């Protein structure tokens, strides 16, 4: 019979915050580890492409300093996954420096493990040649070209590299990780049932996001038993209900009943969610099906170009009612102008989004009509250099404002620009272009680990 194992999730994302007393309260309950996810793809591909952190250094340091001191003083492990945002080597090193700085300031000493998740292009090409890389829907098979274009590639580790690091380190900074692996690694290592570990970890990965009504990010505790787990928040004014915990399998997942991890699939079809009291829920009945092949997801980002945008609004109903034609004529006039300035060879892409029609939903918008009395056009010019995009945008905005319609004779000014200058340089823009699974030699082979004494 396994002892109840309490595990703390500090918050859903390192740097998003929690109440300090929530951590101390969890320590009083005897939690056996602290975990925190530090990354996500939510904010877009730029974090992976550039190595930047979404939250400020100050915000990440504040959260880190509290949980690091709590874990080291209590003598329990701290696991931070998807370090630095995207979990690439640049992100991981950034996070390491934040951690070392706060450790020094607080006089904390511990053994640190750094688990790398960044993948070299050569490694990915080798796996590709061996037929060990498959596309995930809706993506195409991986090409050499896509690998060449990647600025960074990371693989999303499962629980095994974290477990190996916990053998000799108290604090684990992991590169890109499955969010749930942060929390499942220790309980799996201690022999708790896979289904209990993974389902509890799935709830913990978002901190207090699974409470009925969350005012601000905060902490959550799960207590694992041999065949079920209890989950409850640290803030007194938060509560978990069977529905709020059951609903958490919906959040950001394609399929709420089959949650895919590198080592297998958590099946929640038969899960039961029972209220223990008015703020804690017991979960049982989940199963875990081991995968035939151990597979990890890879993520990659590439540069698309440099963007200059223009915001322009239109109030004249005569222009609005022929907007598509007006945009087409503008496009033709602009093409002629660009032939004489930047030349035919200068490749670029211009998109015009119409706010007031389908600006928010684009291709998914079923109502493609303008029903209001004004529209906003957002032009986005993307080319291989900022200078070129800017010069095309400058011609575009000038031609747009005077683009004629047959109803008016003479020179019109048909666009209201809210800003001067009306062209805004956005810098480099990126996209996620890898959505594939790789089948490595072993669960740890893609994730080399460095150790240091702090």
């Amino acid at each position: 019979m396994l002892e109840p194992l309490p595990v703390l999730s500090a918050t859903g994302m390192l740097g998003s915050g929690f109440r300090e007393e929530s951590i101390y309260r969890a320590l009083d309950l005897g939690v056996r580890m602290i975990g925190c996810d530090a990354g996500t793809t939510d904010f877009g591909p730029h974090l992976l492409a550039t190595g930047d952190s979404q939250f400020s250094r100050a915000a990440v340091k504040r959260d880190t300093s509290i949980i690091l001191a709590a874990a080291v003083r209590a003598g329990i492990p701290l696991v931070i996954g998807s370090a630095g945002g995207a979990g690439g080597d640049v992100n991981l090193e950034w996070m390491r420096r934040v951690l070392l700085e706060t450790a020094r300031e607080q006089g904390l000493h511990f053994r640190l493990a750094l688990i790398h998740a960044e993948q070299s292009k050569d490694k990915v090409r080798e796996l590709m040649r061996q037929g060990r890389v498959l596309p995930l829907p809706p993506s195409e098979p991986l090409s050499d070209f896509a690998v060449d274009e990647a600025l960074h590639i990371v693989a999303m580790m499962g629980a095994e590299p974290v477990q190996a690091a916990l053998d000799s380190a108290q604090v684990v900074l992991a590169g890109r990780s499955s969010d749930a692996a942060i929390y499942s690694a220790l309980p799996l290592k201690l022999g708790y049932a896979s289904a209990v570990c993974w389902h509890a970890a799935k709830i913990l990965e978002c901190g207090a996001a699974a409470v009925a009504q969350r005012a601000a990010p905060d902490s959550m505790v799960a207590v694992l038993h041999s065949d079920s787990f209890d989950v409850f928040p640290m803030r007194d004014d938060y509560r978990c209900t069977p529905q709020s915990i059951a609903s958490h399998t919906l959040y950001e997942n394609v399929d709420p009943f089959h949650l895919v991890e590198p080592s297998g699939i958590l099946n929640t079809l038969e899960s039961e969610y029972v209220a223990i009291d008015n703020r804690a829920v017991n979960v049982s009945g989940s199963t875990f099906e081991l995968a035939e092949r151990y597979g990890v997801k890879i993520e990659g980002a590439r540069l698309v170009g440099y963007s200059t945008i223009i915001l322009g609004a239109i109030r004249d109903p005569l222009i609005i009612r022929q907007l598509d034609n007006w945009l087409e004529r503008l496009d033709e006039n602009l093409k002629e102008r660009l032939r004489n300035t930047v030349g035919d060879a200068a490749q670029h892409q211009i998109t015009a989004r119409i706010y007031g029609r389908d600006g928010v939903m684009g291709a998914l918008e079923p109502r493609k009509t303008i029903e209001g009395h004004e529209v906003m056009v957002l032009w986005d010019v993307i080319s291989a250099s900022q200078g070129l995009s800017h010069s095309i945008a400058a011609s575009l905005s000038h031609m747009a404002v005077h683009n004629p319609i047959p109803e008016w004779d003479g020179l019109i000014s048909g666009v209201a620009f809210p800003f001067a200058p009306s062209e805004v340089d956005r810098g480099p823009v990126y996209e996620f272009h890898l959505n594939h699974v790789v089948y490595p030699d072993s669960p740890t082979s893609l994730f080399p680990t460095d150790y240091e004494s702090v």
Partner: protein
Amino acid sequence: MSTLAEVAKLIRSKNAGPFWLTLDVMFDDRQTYEAVRDQHVLSVELISRLYMQPRECVRVFAHDAAMAIKVSIPRPHSSGSPMDTDVFGGQQYAPLLDLAVEFPRHQGHK
């Protein structure tokens, strides 16, 4: 006759990774949830038409424990890419709001 917006507790959309979009329609009482589920208000056919997606790309789940219907479709453009219009995918649920739900005479709803 009611609309989904009138009877649901929450209708939301969000990314499920950078390549998928997922829509959740959640209820706070079982009767309403079951009416929506059993009338197939959110069917693969309807979502396929409403969001202009091939049927084989549309996934619909009825989650009894959560009292929720979930719909997942591929994103037209990956999250945060230059052609994307909604980085978090948070504003893609509006076409669901006006879908009609029928209630038998004796059943109450809000």
